[in-house]
């Protein structure tokens, strides 16, 4: 038996999961009057920009693509001439596949389009990096097309996906194949232990390649993996910063009288902007290595476009997508989600014509998500959810107007190499900020989020909260009460206990979604905190900063 959340508590949980922000007071009032109004609010939220940001966050974690601590594309040539900095290049390239997904979901188009879309997504920077058609008078993000002959298959044909998920020389794109299988089908072929008993003739690279077709220890996985990997021939193995810098050192033109370039298959000309990350001439190179032809779990296929369609037609894609969404929204390992729920939500997805909003709706309105606690027997519940760094960033900005920005560039970052990042959001950066220290992933060294409190997260939140508390108090008291975000009931010199308590009750509602009276035990505690601070500082203003800071660290903020 499960105790459900109250309607207001449910609203907080759903709002944080879908939007990353706290519900507005008006929204709380609505469900207080009519608990059934939650469904309507969910429908509205699913159409909000904030849900679009959540969709991007979900897929950033799924694709492990927002990686700002590893090698970035250098700002050279046309990128430098256009005035971009390192942050521009990073953000645009990593956001391109996420933007494709976001537009599919927010445009109410079938989620399968993320694998079948006959287009690429680019902003001005991405267009310059890869030489894609782009209308400078159009919207920032535009549908465009790859011009290098690669088949179009939604995010499967996005260069950044395969820059992040590289292939090594003898790997023959199998890592990429496993990424696709693991991500979209929940089949982690590479997660299995492998062992080749008796050894292989390692003196012969072809023998090693062939062993995977003949050795009993290999064929089980490679019968599946190698045909999937064959779709990726044409994509470069990797695209590293050093290689691009070197190409520019050669003025983007190799002197063929010197023989082949340092890496024979890496043409210097390909590594200057616009980059040539795909080479049609390499599409059939699997054959040169006597590897298997492109295929999908036993079905022959042609190219990456076929792969996108075959995955999206595979029943595993729907249940895997359900697991991916539920895993993110419920902060649960996707393998821990009961099969019955995964199947049920997979059906919701299929029956809705692959409407990802319907899937998200079904998850956040389910008993598993909205239960407060199990009081008898067993039940699968999401339980207390821990605020993610991206949610914290949005929630604090929404409540206080404060975003934790900094400029940590070192002197001379612009020359001789442009590695300036300018203004960085510390809650969504790992290079300079606290994303992984606050429980998120950096997509490279930290590949799994931490769903629970940690000391480092507590330190981060304390700092963020004190900055936001100080900021909003200063800003609020600088304008009339009607224009303020939080301190609508008091003035800087207000010390009357009744007025202060009334303000505290408002703060509890707005920040925490907690409806308490001015004389409640919750406000007693806040009052005590406020009054103590006022005495210590001899001034109500820092007392308000401290109280707001404390409420932003409150367990009802840490958990939802």
């Amino acid at each position, binding site marked *: 038996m499960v105790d459900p959340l109250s309607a207001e508590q449910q609203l907080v949980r759903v709002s944080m999961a879908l939007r990353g922000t706290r519900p507005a007071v008006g929204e709380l009032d609505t469900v207080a009057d009519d608990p059934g109004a939650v469904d309507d609010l969910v429908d509205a939220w699913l159409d909000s920009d904030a849900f679009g940001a959540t969709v991007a966050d979900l897929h950033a974690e799924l694709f492990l693509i927002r990686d700002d601590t590893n090698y970035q594309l250098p700002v050279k040539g046309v990128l430098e001439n256009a005035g971009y900095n390192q942050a521009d290049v990073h953000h645009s390239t990593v956001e391109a596949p996420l933007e494709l997904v976001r537009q599919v979901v927010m445009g109410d188009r079938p989620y399968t389009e993320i694998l079948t879309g006959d287009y690429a997504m680019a902003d001005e920077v991405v267009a310059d990096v890869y030489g894609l058609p782009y209308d400078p008078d159009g919207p920032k993000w535009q549908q465009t097309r790859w011009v290098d002959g690669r088949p179009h298959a939604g995010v499967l044909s996005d260069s950044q996906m395969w820059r992040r998920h590289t292939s090594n020389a003898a790997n023959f794109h199998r890592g990429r194949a496993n990424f696709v299988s693991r991500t979209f089908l929940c089949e982690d072929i590479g997660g299995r*232990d492998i062992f080749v008993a008796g050894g292989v003739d390692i003196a012969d690279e072809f023998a090693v390649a062939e062993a995977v077709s003949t050795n009993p220890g290999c064929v089980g996985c490679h019968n599946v993996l190698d045909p999937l990997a064959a779709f990726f021939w044409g994509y470069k193995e990797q695209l590293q910063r050093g290689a691009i810098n070197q190409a520019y050192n050669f003025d983007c033109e190799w002197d063929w009288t010197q023989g082949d370039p340092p890496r024979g298959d890496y043409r210097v000309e390909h590594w200057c902007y616009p980059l040539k990350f795909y080479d049609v001439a390499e599409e059939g190179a699997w054959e040169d290595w006597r590897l298997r032809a492109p295929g999908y779990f036993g079905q022959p296929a042609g190219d990456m476009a076929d792969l996108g369609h075959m995955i999206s037609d595979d029943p595993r894609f729907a249940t895997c997508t359900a697991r991916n969404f539920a895993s993110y929204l419920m902060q649960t390992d996707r393998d821990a989600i009961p099969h019955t729920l995964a199947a049920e939500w997979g059906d919701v997805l299929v029956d809705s014509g692959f409407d990802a909003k319907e899937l998200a709706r079904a998850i956040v309105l389910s008993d598993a998500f909205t239960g407060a*606690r199990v009081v008898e027997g067993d039940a699968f519940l999401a339980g207390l959810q821990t605020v993610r760094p991206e949610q914290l960033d949005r929630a604090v900005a929404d409540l206080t107007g404060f975003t934790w920005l900094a400029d940590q560039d070192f002197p001379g970052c612009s020359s001789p190499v442009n590695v300036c990042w300018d203004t960085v959001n510390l809650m969504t950066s790992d290079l300079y900020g606290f994303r992984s220290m606050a429980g998120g992933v950096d997509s490279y060294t930290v590949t799994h989020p931490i769903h629970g409190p940690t000391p480092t997260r507590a330190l981060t939140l*304390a700092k963020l909260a004190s900055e936001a508390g100080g900021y909003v108090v200063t800003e609020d008291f600088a304008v009339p009460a009607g224009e303020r975000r939080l301190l609508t009931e008091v003035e800087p010199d207000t010390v009357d206990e009744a007025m202060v308590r009334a303000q505290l009750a408002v703060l509890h509602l707005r920040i925490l979604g907690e409806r308490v009276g001015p004389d409640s035990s919750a406000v007693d505690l806040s009052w005590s905190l406020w009054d103590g601070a006022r005495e210590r500082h001899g001034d109500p203003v820092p007392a308000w900063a401290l109280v707001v800071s404390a409420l932003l660290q409150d367990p009802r903020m840490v958990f939802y």
Partner: protein
Amino acid sequence: MLTRRELLLSSAGLLGIPRVSMGALPQGRKHLITVLAVGGWDVTFCFDPKLACTAPGGGACIIEGPEVDENPNDPLDREEIARFGEIPVVVNPAKRPAVAEFFDRWHPKAHVVNGIWTGSIAHDPCRFRILTGTPDGTRPDLATINGHTHGGDRPLGAVDLSGWSISGSLASSTGRVGVQSQIVALIDDDVQFRPPEGASFTYPHFDPSPDDEAAVQAFLQQRTESMRGVFGDGGDNDASLDDLLGSLDRASRFRDRSQDILSSLSIGKEAGFLLQVEIAVDLIENGLCHAVTLDTQLDWDTHDLNQTQHDKYQTLFTGLGALMQALEDRGLLEDTVVAVLSEMTRTPLRNSALGKDHWGHTSAMLLGSVRGDAVSGATDHLLESVPVDLESGAPADGGVFNKYDNFAAGVLELVGVDPEPWLPGVVPFRGAHPS
């Protein structure tokens, strides 16, 4: 009003005062320092000599080790197998002098484990396996488990200076310092971020006093307890609330006591390997944590130009020498196990880029409170693991492979942690256990 730093200086007097040793640990309970060589080292350059090895039947061994990089015009640039006590190691006085220097000094405290089967040839799966003993990247790693089990009295169980540690379900007892030492901005009031260019403000917007912070801490504790009325379930929800209280307490204690030690970190800069070594020993000696994870800060993934492994080994052993010396100087060596790990080794032969690719076997070195001056396990002429007796560590016909999970379970036992709850049913590798 005193700042946190001023208060600490005036009352605790941490700066400039000799550090306080925590004293010897109870029997069997050891610190764990994990040193990572991320990317995959070539074990033939050091731990697993294959110079002039032979294949079954006496044929030539086809492994291309460090000898292929020798400069014939440099008489010092010669690879050879040197024996330090009972440990044979490949050394080169020109390219990797630190290796010989290290083993010459520390071989009585060193145990080399060759032929660990990693179960994969991809980086992350191998890293998960060698660090956690499982294929699961959400499970806590050995340092985290050690810190959680033994570090209850310290502000943190384990501190990750490397960025690679996996804390999983035990994250509430761990701490990270950040890629560019961001932790400093969280613990030192004197360190502030720079606002965006052109901003009309400077940080901080609000700087709570120590009394303010204590009041907030008390407020949060009471507020957390009050949540149990709605969410308390005797299960996961209560565990989350407990973790929050524990994290708040640990964060507060760590911040109060770590400023001096972490003052050598500079925000915006990576902590190099030698600096990590220094901080790791300081953290343990001063009782701030029980386990630490370090990284050489080198990319060992030499698909191109495998010859760069020489320099990496030189850096690794220079740092390991400093680490061992510091542990001995501080009286911590007998209470510490250092696990030097890399997720895989590299293929026996070089590829067309003169690099080497991934090979699903590796070596490890255990230092400190271990059966020193010894080698366990082995690989064959194809650099593949051979079966061993897990109890003795000796290669044995009829033995079993020393898999990543056996090895991990053995390390846990070495540091006084029962591996069964973490790696159920796994037989520990005990070759490095002191007799």
